[in-house]
């Protein structure tokens, strides 16, 4: 095998080129332009700003994150400075990121479909490369009611409201806790979404038995980290089957390069990275890139795109494996 062939780690999300497949997931370090730039300098291929609503929001009281053993649980509560400030932040981030070739992505979140459209209009003035709709945050139930991602009709209503005002590729972030995520993906794509981000965190709870209280102030929260990975892989696999060819940002428990390979094989085009920043430190992006590169070299892949969807091929019995 020839050593040190130039590997192509770049991926394409609806015409937006990412230098590598690792996308800083929303809610992680997305609170300021300096942190978004930091993530890009640390090796992220794209970065996502934290979800924005029309009005500023404070978020939940501490504790907001806990490491419970097989993963994390969080209920940060979508603190954000409001769409107007968020647009400024994004514009600043875009200027910082341009020389690095890393596209910024934007999240929008808010009560009604019309409010989603309003937030989208505001943040799009900053010209992010991609707009991602967070219709699946599990931690703001009390104020916002059931996430739109819980049903096809709910998800479609938001996409239909935002599509007409959205001038960039539109991604929709889906929730794992639905009976048929493939059908929701198919419906939002039919309604005009260009891509899918999957999955958001999984609702959960951790109880402190000494006090008899949930650990999070919000009581429930969203599970992330290693425990989420098999669920995320399954969801992405199902979505890739339901909407073949539609780009997917596969997110959930990706902590090592091998995890990323699994996610790509499940059908993801790019890979979201969140809790890994906890498990691997701020160097997570560097480690993931190195491990992905090592895997590709060891197995003779030259382009990340070659990994996409490999798990969907029919089973090949050993004697049927074609000679190279």
């Amino acid at each position: 095998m020839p050593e040190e062939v130039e590997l192509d780690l770049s991926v394409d999300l609806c015409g937006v080129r990412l230098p590598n497949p690792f996308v800083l997931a929303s809610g992680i370090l997305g609170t300021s332009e300096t942190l978004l730039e930091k993530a890009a300098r640390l090796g992220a291929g794209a970065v996502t700003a934290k979800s924005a609503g029309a009005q500023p929001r404070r978020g939940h009281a501490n504790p907001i994150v806990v490491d419970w053993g097989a993963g994390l649980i969080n209920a940060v509560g979508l603190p954000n400075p409001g769409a107007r400030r968020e647009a400024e932040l994004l514009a600043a981030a875009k200027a910082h990121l341009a020389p690095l070739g890393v596209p910024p992505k934007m999240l929008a979140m808010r009560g009604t479909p019309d409010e989603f459209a309003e937030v989208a209009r505001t943040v799009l003035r900053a010209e992010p490369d991609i707009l991602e709709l967070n219709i699946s945050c599990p931690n703001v139930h009390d104020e916002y009611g059931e996430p739109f991602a819980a049903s096809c009709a709910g998800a479609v209503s938001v996409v239909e409201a935002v599509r007409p005002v959205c001038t960039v590729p539109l991604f929709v972030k889906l929730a794992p806790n639905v009976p048929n995520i493939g059908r929701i993906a198919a419906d939002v794509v039919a309604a005009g979404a260009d891509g899918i981000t999957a999955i958001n965190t999984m609702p959960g709870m951790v109880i402190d038995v000494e006090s008899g209280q949930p650990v999070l102030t919000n009581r429930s929260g969203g599970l992330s980290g290693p425990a989420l990975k098999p669920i995320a892989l399954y969801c992405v696999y199902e979505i890739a089957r339901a909407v073949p060819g539609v780009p997917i940002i596969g997110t959930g428990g990706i902590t090592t390069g091998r995890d990323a390979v699994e996610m790509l094989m499940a059908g993801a085009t790019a890979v979201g990275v969140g809790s890994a920043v906890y498990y691997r430190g701020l160097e997570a992006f560097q480690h993931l890139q190195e491990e992905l590169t090592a895997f590709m070299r060891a197995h003779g892949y030259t382009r990340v795109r070659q990994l996409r969807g490999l798990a969907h091929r029919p089973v090949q019995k050993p004697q049927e494996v074609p000679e190279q």
Partner: protein
Amino acid sequence: MKEFAPLPLQAECQPALRPTGPFGLVPRPLRVREVQRENARIRTFVLDGELPHAQPGQFVMAWLPGHEEAPFSLAYHRPVTLTVAAVGPFTRAMHRLEAGDRLWIRGPYGQPFRPEPVGRPLLVGGGYGVAPLAFLAETLLAVGQQPVAFVGGRTAEDVIGVKRLQALGVPVVVTTEDGSLGEAGLVTKPVARFLAEGRGEALYGVGPHGMLRALAELARAHRVPAQLSWEAYMGCAVGLCGMCEHEGVLLCVEGPVRRLAPGTP
């Protein structure tokens, strides 16, 4: 079809994952062994538990179910000791704790103070920032250094932690803004004098941001290294939520202690 040779696990995943174990890093309750009254506003809580690997400058997240969770520097690690100023609802709730009550702790977190390779470090504390200085002094003494401590307060009542430092044999220079104890003026005044006289080769500081900025200035002017502990509102304490960002730095994982190399502009 490509050949799928298994990669050695070590090479695949360097460095190892955060070693949290099967039980993670959930807050665990520690009994309050003793409450020491430092002054009207500040109390020290000695807890029944140890964090043997914690280092001075690191902090823990302390939680009271039904209230809040917030960061506190370790005043000591064996037993876990926190010095807490009552400044708001949560810290006032903490002040109601008595011996036998429980306080939930997770951590330790953050970058600690690291010994500079010098003989005469200066340790500077203001307000409850004095808390970790004795812990720090102990580790510096253990590597053969001769620290001098500077403790500042507005009035004599605000000056805490002097006895603990003196018990270690560390000389302590006390200042108060109103002159009611020790030298009159800000704590940075005697520090500047020591540096000018060549009696200090490194600065360590914990306290209000104004004091830290003044120390950074002094360190620059005298071309000595400084390690300063910066406070910011903290949420997750593990580098995810971004709330503690200070000029692009995540203070919970890249701080709270930040080193300023000598000659940094």
